[in-house]
Structure formats: structure tokens, C-alpha cells
């Protein structure tokens, strides 16, 4: 094994951590297999078409599980290595090489991508298993698993690539998979529109990503992690800030952060396993991954860091408020996802003190949110695909396993002491307070609101009185669906062990640098107690509002403007429509008109002019021989006179 870089050096405080990988060898030679397995599955299933329906789900699940197995082996192998050698790079082939710019297709397996690979393939496999049950009656089940495999491939490319352009390949790949899966039931107009919206909004973010890569090419002649991280300290501050903001724009698109948040709620049109895998656990966290991965960029640009934190803070409150007003269980969870990713973004913006906690919260969120989405899917399955929580109630008896696992997720997300979310969120709030009052208070407030809306979901779905529609007979889902729920529920409960002895921070240190010291105005214990109190307050308020009295079977219409705004996604769509869509449509119509009438009109006008004038000239051809003769005579006379004039003059 030859180190590509002479010994790994710990970064100086405040500076970025250069990416210094070693060549993949031994066990790590098999790294490519992690991606190749689901890629094989996706290819076979897509080419096989309808033939694969009888066994496609098994193949897809097997490929995902196989990938998870390989990833686990790799992870253990990485654990066995010393800290300096935990960044492993496998060169596959040269993607493109033009002038002074080269992009390699190569994989980087380091502590950061390792946890992501495990999350993607692990949770991914569970969701594959769950989907076997959930999609059992769909006539295109083979296709569904093909898309799921395709998503896993793209997501793995995203986190394993070691060049920003290759990341972009995965980045748009997950966008495509998301498009296909949101629009899986494309015969529904709403699904088709939502899928398109998700792709287009993501593309706006992708403009940021493209421009970021272009900036890298112009500045460093490379877009590899190694090159950019090495060159970053020398880049001008303008370049650093531009890069930071462009990457933030990209992250906003993919992670549904304000102002590019609007697609996520609509994305719930997809089948519920999709919402769990893509729009909760993995894809939407890609933005956080990108920011943490680019820590060496943000180390040079405090401006962009503040922007990241601001986006995170705004989104965490934005999402939480939306989550409070939604009666659609999936949309309530989607608002919550937005909000939780806001926490991660906030943490990522804090810098080295927050990176590890961003990733930690990302992992625990991956567990409990996937768990709750799958739980919601299980409920919908039981309620004949009804998503309106006002038609639920008292399901805890009918669906005990779903209830218990959902409860584990619930306790985790609100940060009930001991559960996974408690550890991760608490750390973020702590770091935010150290960064500034505004961020700390905002994050604390968000925790309270989270407790409120999650308690609301819990009460409306499982606890309160029955409000079932007639003909609905809720029943527990088959074990192929409940087993993944149980596993994820368990992870939601005990996911906090990752923090034991500061393991997660130590593990990520080669990527993110050492966790900086932060000073708190009070002891962490008091702060934790404060957070717990706020959470408790949220729960109690929710109980007072939704737990005691009768709940209306339909959403009440006479509500405050806050509720109305939250029901309308805080007018995000209305804003986009008024500012971009309408003027855009007018512009397009105007341009089409311009093109048809003016630009093409000029062309056709010239043609008509020539045609018309020749038509006039043609009139001189009367057909009367004598007039021709007169013309000839006249011409001859003119010629003679002209000759005479010339000769005489």
C-alpha cells in the first residue's frame, strides 16, 4: 500500500482538512462492488420489463442486501485501520481528460462516506424488504424495485465519488430516481406534476452545483476533493465565498431548504417507502453531506458559514410550523423532515464544532424518520390508502406493532431522554447556543414546536377516538412490513450509542477535523434540562389541544391566519408562482409570439416583398406583341441617342 500523500497531518484549528487518501488494496479492492451490485439489479430489472414482475422484488432486495454486506465488511476493515489510513481511494477509470482538467471515476471510502454507505444500504435494504409487502399488489412491482435499486446506485455514487463532478453524477442521479419514484403512479396527474416539480426545483439547486464545479475548474483546474482541499487555503476570499454559497444553493435544492423547499411536500405523492428512503432518510440529507464534505471550503469563508446557519435556522422553524398544520400524515412528516434537516444544516454551518453532530443527527434521523414514514405507510395500508389523520384515531389497539415502533420514533424525534434524537439534537442545540443566542434560541424553539406537532400526529393517529370512514377495517400489516419497522424502531431507541465516548466525533475526525472547543454560558447539564423542559411543554400543549376533546372529522375552516399560512406551506408555492411561474409563462408566450410574428415575420416578409414586387413587374408582360415592339423601339432609340450623346460630347 503506497500512501498517495505523505503522512496525514492534523489540520490546524480553523483551517480545512485536506483529503489525503491512500490507494485501495486488499479488502478495499472490492469497493466497487458496493455500487456494482445494485447497478446490476437495476439494469436487469429495467431491461427485463414485465418479465421481472414475479421475482424482481427478490432480486432488487438481494442486490441491496448484498451491497450492505460488502459495505459492512469494508466498514469493519476501515475500523481496523489506523486513523491516518482511513481514507481509501479506488481509481476506476478516467472519466474525462481535456486540456489541464481531468476527472477520474474513483471512489473515496473514508469515515464520512462509510457511515453514509451503511445508512443508505442498511436503511435501503430494510425499505426494500418493507416494499415487498407494501407494493405486493402493484402490477409494476418489478419496475418499482428497479427504480429503488437505481436510487441506491446513484446515492452511493454521490457519497463515494471523490470528485465534485462525479458527485454531481450521483447528485442528478438521485434526482432522476426521485423523479421516477415520485411519479411512479404517473397516471395520477398530481403525481406527475409533483415529480416534475421536484426535478425542476432540484435543477435550480443543480445550477449552484454546476457553477461551483466550474469555479473549481477555473480556480484549481481540478474538481477532485484532493485537489480542491489542497488548494482551498490559497484561494481568494471571493472565490471561497462564492464556492461556499454555490454549494449551499446546491444543498438547498437537494435538501429542501428554504428557499428551494417547495418540492418536498408535493413529493409525498410517491409511494410511502419512497418517501421513507429518499425523502427522509437519504437523498434529502445529501445537501448536509455536501456541506460537511466541503468543510475545507467553509473553513475559508465565514460569510458562507453564516449563510448556511441562517438557512438551517429558517428552515428548521419553517418546516416545524408547516408540520403543525398538516392533516395529511405524510405531509406532516415531510414538514418535520424539512425541519430536522434544518437542524443538520445549522450544525453543519457551525463548522468543525458541528460537523460531527450534523452527521450524527443525520444518522439518527435516518433511523427514526424512516421508521415513522414506514409506520405511516403501514397505517395507510390499513386505512385503504387514506392519508388524512382526521380519519384516523385509536389505531394503537388495531396496530400494536406499528404503534410501538412509531412511538419509538416519536420519542426519538422529540428528544425524549435516552432515545436517539435526544443525544443528537441536544448536541446541536448546545453547539448553536455556543455560536450565538439567535441560533440557540431558534433551535430551542424548534425543539418545542417539534414536540408539539409530533405529539399531535401521535394523538390524532393512535390515541384519540375513532374517526374511521365507513368500510375501513384497520389491521396490522404483514410481517414483511413489520420486521423492518421493528428493526428501525430499535435503532431509533438505541441509536444514541454512537455518541458513547465521543465515538462519532472521533470517527469523523479525519474528515472534519477535531471538534473545536466551544464555551457555554451554562453547564451542558442545565442546558439539556432546559431543552427537555421545552420539549415537555410542547407535548403538554399538544395534549391540551388535541388529546382531550373531540377532534373534528374534517379540518376546521375558521382558523387563525397562522394556521392558514401553515396549511398553505407558508405561501412558498404562491410565492414561486407569483414571482417565477407567472412571469415566466408570460415571457414564454411573449417570446413565442415574437418568434412567430416578428422574427419569422421578417423572414416571410422579405419573401413576400420579393414575391410581391416581382408580381408587379410581371404586369409589364402584357402579351401584346405591339407593346413589346414599342418597348424595343424605345430601347433602341435610347441606345442610339446615348451613343450619339457620347460621340458628340
Amino acid at each position, binding site marked *: 500500500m503506497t500512501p498517495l500523500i505523505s503522512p496525514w497531518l492534523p489540520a490546524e484549528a480553523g483551517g480545512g482538512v485536506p483529503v489525503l487518501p491512500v490507494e485501495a488494496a486488499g479488502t478495499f479492492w472490492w469497493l466497487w462492488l458496493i455500487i456494482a451490485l445494485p447497478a446490476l439489479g437495476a439494469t436487469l430489472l429495467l431491461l427485463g420489463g414485465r418479465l421481472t414482475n414475479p421475482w424482481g422484488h427478490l432480486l432488487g432486495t438481494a442486490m441491496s442486501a448484498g451491497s450492505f454486506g460488502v459495505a459492512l465488511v469494508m466498514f469493519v476493515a476501515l475500523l481496523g485501520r489506523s486513523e491516518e489510513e482511513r481514507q481509501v481511494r479506488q481509481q476506476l477509470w478516467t472519466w474525462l481528460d481535456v486540456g489541464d482538467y481531468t476527472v477520474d471515476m474513483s471512489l473515496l471510502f473514508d469515515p464520512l462516506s462509510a457511515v453514509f454507505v451503511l445508512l443508505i444500504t442498511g436503511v435501503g435494504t430494510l425499505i426494500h424488504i418493507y416494499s415487498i409487502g407494501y407494493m405486493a399488489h402493484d402490477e409494476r412491482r418489478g419496475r418499482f424495485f428497479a427504480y429503488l435499486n437505481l436510487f441506491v446506485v446513484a446515492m452511493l455514487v454521490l457519497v463515494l465519488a471523490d470528485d465534485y463532478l462525479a458527485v454531481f453524477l450521483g447528485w442528478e442521479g438521485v434526482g432522476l430516481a426521485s423523479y421516477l419514484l415520485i411519479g411512479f403512479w404517473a397516471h395520477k396527474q398530481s403525481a406527475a406534476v409533483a415529480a416534475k416539480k421536484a426535478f425542476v426545483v432540484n435543477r435550480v439547486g443543480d*445550477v449552484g452545483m454546476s457553477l461551483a464545479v466550474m469555479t473549481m*475548474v477555473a480556480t484549481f483546474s481540478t474538481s477532485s476533493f484532493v485537489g480542491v482541499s489542497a488548494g482551498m487555503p490559497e484561494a481568494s476570499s471571493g*472565490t471561497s465565498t462564492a464556492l461556499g454559497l454555490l454549494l449551499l444553493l446546491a444543498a438547498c435544492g437537494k435538501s429542501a431548504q428554504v428557499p428551494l423547499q417547495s418540492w418536498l411536500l408535493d413529493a409525498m405523492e410517491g409511494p410511502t417507502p419512497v418517501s421513507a428512503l429518499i425523502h427522509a432518510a437519504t437523498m434529502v440529507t445529501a445537501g448536509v453531506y455536501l456541506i460537511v464534505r466541503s468543510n475545507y471550503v467553509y473553513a475559508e469563508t465565514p460569510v458562507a458559514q453564516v449563510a448556511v446557519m441562517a438557512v438551517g435556522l429558517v428552515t428548521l422553524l419553517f418546516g416545524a410550523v408547516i408540520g403543525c398544520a398538516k392533516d395529511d400524515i405524510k405531509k406532516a412528516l415531510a414538514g418535520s423532515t424539512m425541519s430536522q434537516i434544518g437542524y443538520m444544516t445549522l450544525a453543519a454551518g457551525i463548522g468543525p464544532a458541528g460537523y460531527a453532530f450534523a452527521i450524527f443527527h443525520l444518522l439518527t434521523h435516518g433511523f427514526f424518520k424512516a421508521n415513522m414514514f414506514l409506520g405511516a405507510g403501514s397505517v395507510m395500508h390499513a386505512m385503504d390508502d387514506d392519508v388524512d389523520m382526521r380519519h384516523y384515531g385509536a389505531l394503537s389497539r388495531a396496530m400494536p406493532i406499528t404503534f410501538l415502533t412509531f412511538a419509538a420514533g416519536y420519542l426519538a424525534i422529540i428528544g425524549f431522554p435516552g432515545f436517539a434524537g435526544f443525544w443528537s439534537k441536544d448536541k446541536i442545540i448546545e453547539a448553536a447556543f455556543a455560536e450565538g443566542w439567535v441560533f440557540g434560541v431558534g433551535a430551542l424553539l424548534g425543539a418545542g414546536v417539534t414536540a408539539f406537532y409530533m405529539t399531535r400526529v401521535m394523538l390524532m393517529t393512535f390515541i384519540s377516538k375513532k374517526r374511521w370512514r365507513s368500510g375501513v377495517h384497520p389491521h396490522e400489516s404483514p410481517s414483511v412490513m413489520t420486521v423492518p419497522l421493528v428493526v428501525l424502531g430499535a435503532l431509533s431507541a438505541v441509536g444514541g450509542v454512537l455518541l458513547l465516548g465521543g465515538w462519532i466525533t472521533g470517527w469523523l475526525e479525519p474528515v472534519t477535523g477535531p471538534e473545536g472547543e466551544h464555551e457555554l454560558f451554562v453547564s451542558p447539564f442545565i442546558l439539556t434540562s432546559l431543552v427537555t423542559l421545552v420539549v415537555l411543554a410542547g407535548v403538554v400543549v399538544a395534549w391540551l389541544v388535541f388529546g382531550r376533546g373531540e377532534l373534528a372529522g374534517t379540518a376546521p375552516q375558521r382558523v387563525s391566519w397562522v394556521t392558514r399560512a401553515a396549511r398553505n406551506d407558508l405561501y412558498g408555492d404562491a410565492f414561486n408562482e407569483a414571482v417565477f411561474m407567472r412571469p415566466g409563462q408570460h415571457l414564454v408566450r411573449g417570446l413565442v409570439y415574437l418568434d412567430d410574428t416578428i422574427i419569422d415575420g421578417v423572414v416571410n416578409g422579405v419573401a413576400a416583398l420579393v414575391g410581391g414586387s416581382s408580381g408587379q413587374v410581371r404586369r409589364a408582360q402584357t402579351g401584346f406583341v405591339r407593346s413589346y415592339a414599342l418597348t424595343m423601339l424605345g430601347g433602341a432609340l435610347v441606345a442610339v441617342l446615348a451613343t450619339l450623346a457620347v460621340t458628340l460630347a
Partner: protein
Amino acid sequence: MSFPLLTILGGVPLLGALLLVALPRSRAAAAPMVALVCSLVTLGLGVVVAWQFDADAGGFQLSEEADWIPALGAHYALGVDGIGLTLVLLTVVLTPVVILASWRDGDLGRWSANSFFAWVLALEGLAIGVFAATDVFLFYVLFEATLIPIYFLIGGFGGPQRSYAAVKFLLYSLLGGLLMLAAVVGLYVVSADAGAPSYLLTDLMDVPMEETTGRLLFAGFFVAFAIKAPMFPVHTWLPDAAASATPGTSVLLVSILDKIGTFGMIRFCLGLFPEASQWASPVVIALAVFSVLYGALVAIGQTDMRRLVAYTSVSHFGFIVLGIFVFTSQGGSGSTLYMFNHGLSTAALFLVTGMLIQRRGSAQIADFGGVQKVAPVLAGVFLVAGLSSLSLPGLSPFVSEFLVLAGTFRTSVLAAVVATLGIVLAALYILLMYQRTMNGPLQASAAAIPDLGLRERLALAPLLALILALGFFPQPLLDVINPAVGATLSHVGVAQPEPDVDVSAPDEEPQP
């Protein structure tokens, strides 16, 4: 002179065309097969040409040269460099695909199927000649000659508006050709003044030229190529032509013939008039960026699928021209690669929309809906073709589009930023069309649409396979293109931009 491989490559389809003309009408049913075999032989020869080509050597290869009209200095001179080879390959790859996809299209025209396929083959032969010509006079003659087959293909086998479209196309192209003819005459004067007249590219490149003369001649060539490409504002013949022609003709027109425009810009504008090219580049870049956005926006507003695809091409040609005139290696190589990739992706898009239109008898987007339910394979191919048109990473156009943008960013940040907005618009025009035709509830009128047949799958499969393969492995083609683009750029004489921060040796510690 070595073995005249290029002459044979161009001659085989021309001979095939003659053979088809000689084929009696009673045997018209055999015409597609004859044409297919002929184009496959040409493809085989094209592979031989590519195999004979030494990418590392650079310069013009497989050259042939003979005097043609000594008094004018015109030669019969052929040869390919990396750029020419790329486009020759595109031509020989696409023609069999077009023939296979247009199997029955010749039956419905004004003339017999024989003549349809004869014109297709004639076009292939002439296009190969255009891309391989290394003599300006020969290039000009072939450039004008390509108008003849395409005129008859549109005018003889198209839709109801075919005569209008064919005449509009012909007159527009002739106007450009006229300007080019003037410039060609001017080149004769310039080269005669410098000594013996010669139209050979290699001779003309070294001819000294006055600044004003060069700029005027440049303008003559550029306008002709801009009409051909087509760029805003001389693009309006394309939507009309594409809406009236058969899908196969549209492919030949947009994927192959229009490339002569951008190919000519690299080969002749940059090659012969380096000073004038630099002088004009700000205007051209502005026009190209505007074309990118304008084409995309107008495409969004189209109701006819064929016109929509035509307008997307206006946008894509904007990218290609942009890459050519920023004078960076990424831009130039990206543009050349883009020509190839755009050829593939637009061919796929035109053919698949053509198949869809043929099934339903209407090209209006509003007449479709929910087709993916009854024709999943067709929908899948449509989606892949569309995604390649919107430059999804992993499909071949992405690599070229990104290279163009990256190359642009290095010289003009503003142009790159504005052009990058085009990728959002691209997503809109493709996905809106896809959503309205393929997704949503199944329309009753579209319910009887059958899925793709075997012949149609066979025609589209090679395109999709190439699009996918070149998305992940573009390097073999780039290896061919890079030396040629490098030579052109060094001839233009613009210094390549240097990175601000040198990290070329990543295995060293960064400088303090």
C-alpha cells in the same frame, strides 16, 4: 497518394443511391433493404477509417489530393482530423439508424420509396465529403450540394406544409451559401495576390491577410454557418422544416447537416481567420448565450412536439457555438463532443416523437396523455432521449455541455452563469412535454397506441446504447478530438487560462 479510403467511404453511399435509382419501381419493396445494407457497409468502412486514424499523431490523416481546377487553385483534397473524423463517424452511425427507422416513410411520398432512400444515401455520401474536404472550394461545392437531397426529402416526403418548408429551407440556405460564395471568391483573390492561387486549407492558413479583408471574409463564412447551425435570429427555417419533414429527414437535417455549420465555424472561421474570430468573439458569445436561453424558452411554449425538439436544438447549438468561440481547450473539445452527442440525442428524440406522432396521427402535445400506461417501452425510450437532451449526468450530452460551460467560465464568468440557467429551462421543456404526453390519466384517443415494434427497437437501441456508453466513457472520443482542437486553438493563438491556484501536484504539501 495512399489508398483513397475517404473517397471510397463517401463513394459507397453515392453508388448505392445510383443503384436505388436504377432499381425498377416494381422492386421498390427491396429499396429499404438495399439502402440499409449500403449504409451498413459504409458504417463498416467508417469503423476502418477510425481504426486507421492515429489519435496521437494529430493533423489531417488519410489525406488524398489531386488537382481539380488548376486555374482556380481548386483541388480534390480529402483528409480528416479529430474533429472531421468525429462528424464522419456521426454520419455513418446515424444513417443506418435513420433508414431502419424510416422503413415505411418512403411509401407515402410524392415519389417512390426508391428515391427516398436514394436521396438519403446521397446525402450521407455528400455529408461525408463535406466533413472530409480539406479544400475550401470542394467544401463549398459539397456544402451547396447537400441542399439538393434534403430539399427533395422535405419537399417530397413530408407533411402538408412540405413545399413551403422545403422552399423556405432552400432559399434560406442559398442566401447563406451566396454570402459564403462571395467569401470563397474573396479567398481566391487573397491567395492569388499572395502568389499562386490555392484553395487548400493548409495553404490558406498561411496566407497573409489584411485585417479588414479577413474580417469581411470571416463574416461571409460565419453568417452562412450561423444560418446552417442555426443560431438566433436566423433559425426560423428549422422549426418549419422539422415540423413538415419525416422524422428520418429531421434527423438527417438537424443531427448531421446542421453540424456542418458548427463544424465550419471551427474548421474555417477559426482556421482561416484567427484574428477576425477573436475580434468577433464577444458578439458571437453574446449571440450564442442568447440562443441558449431563447431556444429553450420558445421551446417551452411550443404545442407541436417536432417544433419543440427543433427549438431545443437552437438552444443546444447555442452551447456548441459558445464553446467554439471561448477559445479554451475545454470549450473547444466540449463543443466538438457536443456535436456528436447532440446528434445522438436529438436523433433519438426526433425518431421517438416521430413514432409517437405516426401512431396517433397528430403532433400536438395536447392530443396525448398517459401514453406510458399503454406503451411503456416507448415512454421509457422517450424519457431517456429527453433526459439526454436535458443533459442528465451519466448520459453523453452532459459531459460535453459541462465541458463547454467550464471552458466558458474560464474566460467569461457572466456568459457561463447565464448559459447555465439553460439547464433549468431544459428540464422544463423536456419534462413538461413528457408529463403532458406520457403521464397523467390515459386519454381515450391515445388508448390504442401500440408499443414499439421490433424494427423500431432495433433502430433506437444503438442510439441509447451509445448515449449511455459515451456518458460514462467519453474519453476515447475525447482522445481523438483533443489534439485537433488543441491545434486549432494554437493556430488562433489565444493563451489558455491558467488556474488561480496551482494544485497540479497534489502529492506535495500545499505551498504556505
